[in-house]
């Protein structure tokens, strides 16, 4: 393994000590090389400790208690909301809704718009716009909405090098468009999308803008005000937080105006058997006992990420990605799916290797301790677009190292030989 140092790298030796799992060995002593961060990130000790502390000392249900534990739990839960609001530069903490994952966040928006009154209502003779590079979680909710309301689903296609084809933006986003939903960073190709061009056109026609920031929030500064979006969704488990928690940020006015989605405890103002009124946002959208420990964990995760600095993390990943792109490009028969350089892209690289099926690539890499993801990565339309059944995807995070990139490149060479 090389001892490459690249400008912009973080002190991964120190950082890796925070992540217990990175010490693991697999398959009889191979050191784990975890390159599946776009699927889920590992969790630092700080996050695990915050959740243990919650469970061992403060656990109670939130919002309704006068006893000490209930007050502590409520303060911790709502404190996590403050942290997340600050992390994304939300104008108000009340704009941060906790969900179970990004998928729920996106379904929440789709359902609110389906049940909304004018002017938001998505219905027959209106249009929904997405893109061909969306994660299934930003496709299926809109397909369901379209089937159930009669609205038309449209999308931006892709260029050969893995970018959005915005050439027909004015025909795709029209006066009939009620909502435009797209991913900030592609989870399969790493592409970073040009938000401004899309938002400008959406605003022109008065369409709401939903940004799927699931692959952005973990890796770069996310500023919901700068984005000028109406809704932004992301998920805890990809950003050093636990599973079981997601976030929907929404503009206050919209959250106030739009109808609730899930009904139940916590989201009400007053209930009679005949009718109910609802609590103000964010609680209106948080039916039932929320993921309390998980919010606490996510709060600790954004503290952790902030203490390192999102700019620094992005710089680190960019350096690593550039290094990886260069190394992988040298491998014969390797074809990138997505941008072929490190420009305007995140730390996720998909490729195919001759006609060796990605499943086989992944299996042979795994045997060497290298964990990558293979398949369609919940973005099957991208595979269809490029005429391939699946890709092999390596994705980096703040603890990834040049040595791990070397291991990947060597591993891929080994795969080629194995199936030669």
């Amino acid at each position, binding site marked *: 393994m090389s001892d490459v140092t690249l400008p912009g790298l973080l002190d991964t030796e120190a950082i890796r000590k925070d992540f217990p799992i990175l010490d693991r060995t697999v398959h009889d002593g191979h050191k784990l090389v975890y390159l599946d961060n776009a699927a889920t990130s590992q969790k630092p000790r700080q996050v695990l400790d915050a959740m243990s502390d919650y469970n061992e000392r403060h656990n109670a249900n939130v*919002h*309704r*208690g*006068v006893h000490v534990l*209930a*007050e502590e739990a*409520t*303060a911790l839960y709502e404190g996590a909301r403050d942290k997340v609001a600050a992390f994304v530069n939300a104008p108000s903490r009340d704009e941060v809704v906790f969900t179970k994952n990004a998928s729920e966040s996106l379904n929440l928006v789709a359902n609110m718009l389906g049940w909304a009154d004018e002017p938001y209502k998505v219905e027959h003779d209106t249009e929904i716009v997405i893109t061909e590079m969306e994660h299934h979680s930003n496709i299926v909710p809109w397909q369901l909405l379209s089937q159930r309301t009669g609205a038309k689903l449209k999308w931006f296609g892709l260029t050969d090098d893995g970018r959005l084809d915005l050439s027909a933006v004015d025909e795709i986003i029209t006066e009939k468009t009620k909502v435009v939903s797209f991913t900030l960073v592609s989870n399969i190709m790493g592409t970073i999308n040009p938000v401004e061009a899309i938002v400008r056109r959406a605003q022109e026609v008065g369409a709401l803008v939903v940004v799927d920031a699931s692959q952005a929030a973990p890796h770069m500064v996310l500023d919901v005000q700068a984005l000028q979006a109406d809704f932004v969704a992301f998920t805890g488990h990809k950003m050093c937080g636990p599973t079981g928690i997601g976030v929907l940020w929404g503009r206050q006015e919209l959250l106030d105006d739009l109808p609730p989605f899930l009904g139940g405890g916590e989201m*009400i*103002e*007053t209930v009679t058997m005949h009718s109910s009124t609802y*609590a*103000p946002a964010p*609680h209106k959208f948080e039916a039932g006992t929320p993921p309390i420990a998980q919010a606490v964990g996510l709060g600790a995760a954004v503290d952790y990420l902030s203490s390192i600095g999102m700019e620094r993390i992005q710089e680190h990943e960019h350096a690593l990605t550039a290094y990886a792109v260069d190394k992988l490009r040298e491998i014969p028969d390797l074809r990138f799916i997505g941008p072929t350089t490190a420009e305007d892209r995140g730390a996720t690289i998909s490729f195919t290797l001759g006609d060796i099926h990605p499943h086989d690539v992944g299996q042979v890499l795994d045997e060497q301790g290298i964990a990558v993801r293979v398949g369609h990565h919940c973005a099957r339309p991208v595979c269809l677009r490029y005429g391939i059944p699946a890709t092999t995807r390596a994705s980096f995070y703040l603890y990834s190292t040049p040595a791990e990139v070397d291991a990947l490149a060597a591993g891929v060479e080994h795969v080629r030989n194995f199936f030669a």
Partner: protein
Amino acid sequence: MKLDSMYQEVILDHYKNPHGKGLREGDAEVHHVNPTCGDEITLRVRYDGETISDVSYEGQGCSISQASASVLNELLVGKELGEARTIQETFLELMQSRGRIEPDEAMEDVLEDAVAFAGVSKYPARVKCALLSWMAWKDATAQALGEDSVKEKTA
């Protein structure tokens, strides 16, 4: 006992013998609810020009919310609107201090009996009880004076 800082003599007195309770004629009426605990208040204000000629109310709730409405009535009736607003804002500031404000003499001059609620501010779940009637008063006043409703959700 720490609890005594919340349940001050003054508060218990107001709770047991509330001032001005009952609904009388008014220029505007509001109904506020604290969804956390189900406390409710219906409150009417009556103005004579800029002067608060009456604040009448009916409601159900804990000692803190009941006593607070009683103190409000005692403090605000007869006051000019400007002065009443100062009192309301000072009370709000005290209640949101999480026990960090130790009322000084100036504050006591403004709040009179209402300084007794300083101890309540240490109990986040009860702050809303103490504020329920004050938020209702603010809302009712806005309505009575024809301002846009500034109903602040008490949730």
